[in-house]
C-alpha cells in the first residue's frame, strides 16, 4: 500500500469503498487470505501461519437476497449481510474462513457457511462462555487445535517464535490504534469518528504490517493538522456490537455531534486490548481473547453480590471511556435478534443512569433504509443533551 502522508486519507477512503482491493492484489501474488468474523478470532495465529487475516464486512446498502435462500431471517442482520455478500462471491479471493463461537447466529450457521462457500479451509474456534481458570486452560487447548489446523492448511509449522513475533506486530497495531483514539480527546476532536472508523475498517483488511504503516501515515497527517476540521458539539460514545460502516457515525456528526469514543467490536473492543508478551504465547492469546475482549457473550461472575457492583465490573470500561473522552451522551446501538447485547439493555441503561451519562437506545436492522428514522431520533437526542 503506497499512501503518501498528504493523501493518506484519500487512500483510506478508496480502500474503504473498494473493501478487499488490496487483499485481491495479494491473492494474485499467491498469498493466502483468511477471512474471519467477530473479535474472538486470534489474528496473531493467522499472521504467524504466514497468512493474512481479513475481516469480513457486510454492506448496509446491499439488499439481502441469495443469503436468505440458505439462512433464516431471524439471524443477526449484520451477520446475514456478511453471509449474503459471501454467497454473492464478494469475498471469492479468500482461501478460508474462521468463525468463532461468538453467538448463536455464528454457531448455527457454521454448516451453511462451510457448505455454501467454495473455500478450501474452514475452522470453528470454540470460545468458552465463562471465565474460570479451567476456561482459560480449555481455551489454550482449543487454540492449540487451531494452530495445528492452520499448520496443515498453510503447510508450515507455527513456532513459538512465529507467535511471539505476530503478537508483537499486532500489539504495535493496537498501540497505534490507541494513539488514534487519543486524537479524539481534544475538543473538538482532531480526528472525526467517520475518519477513524474508515481507518480501522481498512486496517482490518490489510496485512498487519501494512495496517501499521497506514496507521503511522494517518497519525502523521492528523498530527500536522493545526486545528480540528470539526466544530465543537456534544461528545458522543457509541456502545454496541459490530458497526463496520460509517453511516450512523456520519449521521451523528452531520447533526452536530462528535463521536469521540466507542465500545464497538470494530472499534475499541477489538482494537485496544494488548496481548501479554513473554511466556507461553498460547496462554497469552487465551488471556487476551477471553479475558480482555469485553463482550456480553462472555459471562463474568457477579463477585460483588450487588447489582451496582456487578454493573461496575461488567460495564466499567464504558465509565472509564466516558471519563477519559469527556463524553456528554451515549448511543446504545443494538441489532434486532442480537441475544448477547439485547439481554443487557436494561442493565446497561441502569449503568448509564448511574454514571449520569444521557443515553439513546436504538434497535436497528443493519440497513440503509432505517437511516431516516435514526436521524429523527438522533437529532432529538442531541437537542435534548444540548
Amino acid at each position: 500500500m503506497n499512501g503518501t502522508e498528504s493523501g493518506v486519507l484519500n487512500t483510506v477512503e478508496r480502500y474503504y469503498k473498494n473493501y478487499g482491493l488490496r487483499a485481491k492484489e495479494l491473492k494474485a501474488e499467491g498469498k493466502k487470505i483468511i477471512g474471519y468474523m467477530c473479535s474472538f478470532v486470534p489474528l496473531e495465529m493467522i499472521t504467524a501461519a504466514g497468512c493474512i487475516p481479513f475481516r469480513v464486512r457486510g454492506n448496509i446498502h446491499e439488499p439481502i437476497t441469495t443469503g436468505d435462500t440458505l439462512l433464516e431471517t431471524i439471524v443477526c442482520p449484520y451477520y446475514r449481510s456478511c453471509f449474503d455478500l459471501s454467497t454473492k462471491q464478494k469475498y471469492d479471493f479468500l482461501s478460508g474462513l474462521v468463525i468463532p463461537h461468538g453467538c448463536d447466529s455464528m454457531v448455527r450457521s457454521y454448516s451453511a457457511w462451510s457448505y455454501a462457500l467454495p473455500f478450501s479451509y474452514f475452522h470453528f474456534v470454540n470460545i468458552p462462555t465463562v471465565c474460570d481458570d479451567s476456561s482459560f486452560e480449555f481455551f489454550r487447548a482449543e487454540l492449540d487445535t487451531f494452530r495445528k489446523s492452520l499448520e496443515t492448511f498453510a503447510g508450515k509449522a507455527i513456532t513459538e517464535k512465529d507467535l511471539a513475533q505476530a503478537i508483537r506486530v499486532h500489539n504495535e497495531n493496537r498501540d497505534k490504534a490507541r494513539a488514534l483514539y487519543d486524537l479524539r480527546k481534544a475538543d473538538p476532536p482532531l480526528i472525526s469518528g467517520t475518519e477513524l472508523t474508515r481507518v480501522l475498517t481498512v486496517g482490518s483488511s490489510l496485512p498487519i504490517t501494512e495496517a501499521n504503516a497506514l496507521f503511522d501515515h494517518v497519525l502523521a497527517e492528523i498530527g500536522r493538522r493545526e486545528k480540528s476540521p470539526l466544530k465543537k458539539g456534544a461528545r458522543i460514545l457509541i456502545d454496541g456490537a459490530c458497526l463496520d460502516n460509517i453511516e450512523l457515525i456520519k449521521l451523528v456528526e452531520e447533526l452536530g455531534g462528535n463521536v469521540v469514543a466507542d465500545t464497538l467490536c470494530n472499534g475499541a473492543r477489538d482494537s485496544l486490548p494488548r496481548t501479554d508478551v513473554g511466556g507461553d504465547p498460547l496462554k497469552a492469546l487465551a488471556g487476551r481473547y477471553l479475558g480482555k475482549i469485553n463482550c456480553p457473550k462472555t459471562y463474568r461472575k457477579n463477585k460483588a453480590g450487588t447489582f451496582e457492583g456487578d454493573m461496575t465490573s461488567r460495564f466499567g470500561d464504558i465509565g472509564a471511556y466516558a471519563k477519559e473522552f469527556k463524553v456528554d451522551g451515549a448511543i446504545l446501538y443494538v441489532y434486532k435478534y442480537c441475544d448477547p447485547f439485547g439481554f443487557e439493555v436494561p442493565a446497561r441503561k441502569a449503568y448509564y443512569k448511574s454514571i449520569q451519562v444521557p443515553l439513546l437506545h436504538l434497535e436497528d436492522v443493519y440497513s440503509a433504509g432505517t437511516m431516516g428514522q435514526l436521524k429523527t431520533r438522533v437529532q432529538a437526542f442531541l437537542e435534548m443533551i444540548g
Partner: protein
Amino acid sequence: MAEEQREAKPKKRMTATRAAASIGPLVKEFITGTIQARAEGKQKLAYTFIVCHHEEILRAMDVLPVWTENFAGICGAKRDAERFLQRAESLGLSRSLCTYALCGIGFDQWREELGEMPPNAPWGGQVRPDFMISTGQILCDPRSKWYQASQQFMPDVPIYNMDLPYPMFQRDRDHRDVWNYYHTYLVKQLRGLVAFVEEQTQKKMNYDRLRELVDLSDRTWNLMDETYKLRAAVPCPMGTGDAMNTMVPICFMMATQKAHDFFVDLKKELEDKIAKKEGEVENEKYRLMWGGGLPAWYALNDFNYFNSKGASFPVETTYRMVAPLDQMDIPETKDPIEHLAWRWLGYWTFWYDKAKKRPGSEPDVERLINWIEEYKIDGVVMHEAFSCRTWHVGLIWQLHQLSKIYKPIPLLMVGKDGKKEKVFRELPSLILESDIIDITSYSEVDTRNKIDAFIDTLDSIRVNRAA
C-alpha cells in the same frame, strides 16, 4: 400495559395415549410442588435449564429444580404470556429476543416489584429461587444471559454459570482428537457446580446416591429410546403431538424413578396399541416427521388438525434429547461426574461418524435422513419460531441439503434382490412460522391453509407415484 388482558382459553388437544394425557396434571403438580417447597423452606430451589446433564447432581443434593423454560411454556400454552412479554419490553428488552426468557424476566420483575406472585399467575406462578444455574453451552445465548438479566431484580440470588461445550462437527477432523480436553473442562465445570451447590445448601455431596441416580438416568435414556423406536410401527401408535407431552419426563423429571416408570408404562401402552394395530390416526395416510423447531405451545391443536387429514407424526427431532448409550463410543468410568461429561459428549457427537460418511451431510441432516428411512416418512414439517436462534437457525439449510438427496425425480436404486429399480424419493417439506409463546405471531387461518396445501402436495405425489 395489558397486565390483566388474557387470551381465551385454548381448546384442549386430544391425545392418542393415556400416558400423554397424564402429563398435564403431572406438570401442575410439580409447579405447585415448588410453591409448597418454598413455603415450607426445607428444600433449596434452583432456577435452571433443561438438557444440561446436571439433574442427577441437583437431585442427589435434594435441590428442587425450577425449570424456567417450562414455566414460560406453560404461560404460552395457557395463552397467558403476553402480559409478561409486555412487561419485559417495558424494561427495554426487544421482542426479537428469546420469548421464553422475556416471559421469565417479565414475570420475575413483576413478582419482585409486588413482593408476591403477579395476579392470577398461571398455576400459582414461578417461585423465587435460592440460586440460579445458567449454562453457557455452544448453543443458546439466552441460557447464559437470562438469569444475569433477572439478577437485576433479585441481586441477592447467586448464579453459577456452567460452561458445557462440545466439539463442533468439522468434516476434516475426528472429534475424538480433541474431546479429551473437552472432557477435562466439562468435568471441572460439573465439579464446580457440585462445590457451588454444596456451598448453597451447606450439605456435602453423597456420591453413592449420585452414582445411583446417574445409573437410573442411563436406564431411562435407553428405555426411552426403545419406547420411541416402537413408533416406527404402521400405523403409528403415538405422534409428535403426544411427544410434546411426553417430553416432560425426559426434560424435567430425569433422574427420578417416576420418569423411568413413566416410560415403562408408555412402552407397554405402545406395545398394546401395536398389537391391536391401533394408530394415532384411524386411517393413516401420511407419515410426517417434525424435523425441527420448538412447537407453538398455544397451538398444539394443529397436530390434531394434521391428524384430521390422515397425517401422523411417528418421529420428531425436537425434545428427543437422548440417544442409546450402548451405541455411544464413550469410555467406561466409575466416577459419576466423569460419566456425565462423557455422556454429554457422546450425545452431541452421536451422529458425527455417520455424517462424515455421506457427502453433503452433517449431523443434523444425517439424523433426519436416518429417521426418514427408519420411520418411513412421507414429508417433513418444521417450525420456525422467530424469537429463537438456538433451535431454528439452520433449518432452511438442512432442508436444502435434504432436497439434494430426496429429489422429485425417479432414481435408480439397488433393491432388496440386488437389482436396480426406479424409486421416487421426493420428500416435500413444510415450514410453519410463528413463535414458541408469542401468540401475536400466529395466525390459525394461515397455518391451516399452509397445512391444507401441504396435504394436497402429499396427495399429488402419491397419485403421481401410482401413475
